[in-house]
């Protein structure tokens, strides 16, 4: 059972979060410059391949954000600590945004390479399913006013959605498969390693900076919902005109 007391908001949190996000953005700029300007052109795909430097790190971090969301959901159900609810909301929002970006980058790459914007391959379809499943949970959070029910239900739904991901992946894999091999530093030439790694850490830092800032916002909202109501003058609750002499 969740404690009916909101967690305190740390005073130093935004400074660290802003620093993390700033460092991430700088790394992302550096890695992208390296990938676009300095890294050699790929032999078969040419310049189109350069989207890999942002696409692959986005994929890793999107998965990481949603795995973190799953961990937060489990932690909230087991511990009942509100900070995990705030982190769950933040991680799901950032994870959905990254997954959506992933689908868009994939489409931009697929059009010149495969000749189509979309293909029903396992990873693409699973990412799309993840976007819809977690967007549904974010929508659920908007339509539930009671903070306890909102936290428990979204944790339960996040666990079910996350457990569903591998089944979706395998079912679509059986259904149809076309996607190229997964790109990791082991499967790409060493000349492409550095921009890939720099961007991966860039997105990682940016992601945790954003999750931390968003979790802080969620905590502030929880404090206003769970805290004692502020005393207001009685006149504020009386409709206008109700107290006047009507004769």
């Amino acid at each position, binding site marked *: 059972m969740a404690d009916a007391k909101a967690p305190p908001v740390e005073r130093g949190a935004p400074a660290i979060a802003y620093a993390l996000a700033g460092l991430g953005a700088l790394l992302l700029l550096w890695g992208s410059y390296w990938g676009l300007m300095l890294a050699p052109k790929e032999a078969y795909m040419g310049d189109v391949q350069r989207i890999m430097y942002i696409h692959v790190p986005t994929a890793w971090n999107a998965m990481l954000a949603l795995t973190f969301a799953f961990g937060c959901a489990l932690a909230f159900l087991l511990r009942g600590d509100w900070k995990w609810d705030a982190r769950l909301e933040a991680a799901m929002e950032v994870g959905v945004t990254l997954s959506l970006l992933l689908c868009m980058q994939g489409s931009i790459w697929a059009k010149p390479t495969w000749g189509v914007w979309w293909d029903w391959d396992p990873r693409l379809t699973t990412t799309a399913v993840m976007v*819809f*499943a977690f967007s549904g949970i974010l929508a659920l959070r908007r339509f539930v006013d009671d903070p306890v029910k909102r936290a428990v239900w979204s944790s*339960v739904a996040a666990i079910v959605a996350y457990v569903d991901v591998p089944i979706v992946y395998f*079912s679509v894999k059986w259904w149809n498969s076309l996607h190229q091999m997964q790109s990791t530093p082991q499967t790409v030439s060493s000349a492409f390693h550095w921009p890939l790694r720099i961007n991966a850490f860039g997105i990682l830092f940016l992601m945790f900076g954003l999750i931390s800032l968003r979790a802080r916002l969620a905590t502030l909202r929880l404090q206003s919902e769970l805290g004692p109501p502020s005393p207001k003058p009685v006149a504020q609750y009386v409709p206008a005109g109700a107290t006047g002499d009507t004769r």
Partner: protein
Amino acid sequence: MHLAAALHKDVLLQWRGRAQVVAIFVFGATSLLLFSFAIGPDSAALRQHAAGFIWLALLLSSTLTLADSFHSEMEERALEGLLLLPVSPGALYYGKALANWAQLSFLGICLVPVMVVLYDAFTTRFLGLVGIILLGSAGLSAPGTLYAAMTSQARAKQTLLPLLLFPIVVPVLLASVKATSLLILGDPMGQIRSWALLLVSFDLICWSLSGLLFGRVVED
């Protein structure tokens, strides 16, 4: 014992509201009729897509069945009364999910003749088709009952249930459509078994996970 009592309550509720089941069947049959207009009068194409259409009709109908299943529990705080009884929430969940499974399977089996007539999609392996409908309906009712318990207490419940349920049941839809299609169009490679296995695995995971989590959904 508790499960039997919970199941009895839910089956009785469904029996008393059987007019609703008839209305949902008419909705499913109407969907099947409308889907054919998306393809045109090409009988070969209609037959090829019949499996997809019957499962889409059942999926759309399932949101009505599932959303309605918690209606009476929400009236006059009946759910709170049920939770005060010395019954585990698991028994309440499995009673409701089994009743929903029965209703969805019945609905699916009733939609088969409509599919056969409209799409000329006849199969002699009727028992196999019933088996796939049973497995597919179980995959829809387990997460559906869990989500219906949540959304029935939320605002915009009509929108939220399909929004939460549809992405989760993608494997059920895929496996059921493929297996049904193989039954109708023939299965020279013997692939039905693997799709049925996928359905069984999904059902096992969803029925156990949802039963575990249901207590938290209704207790807090």
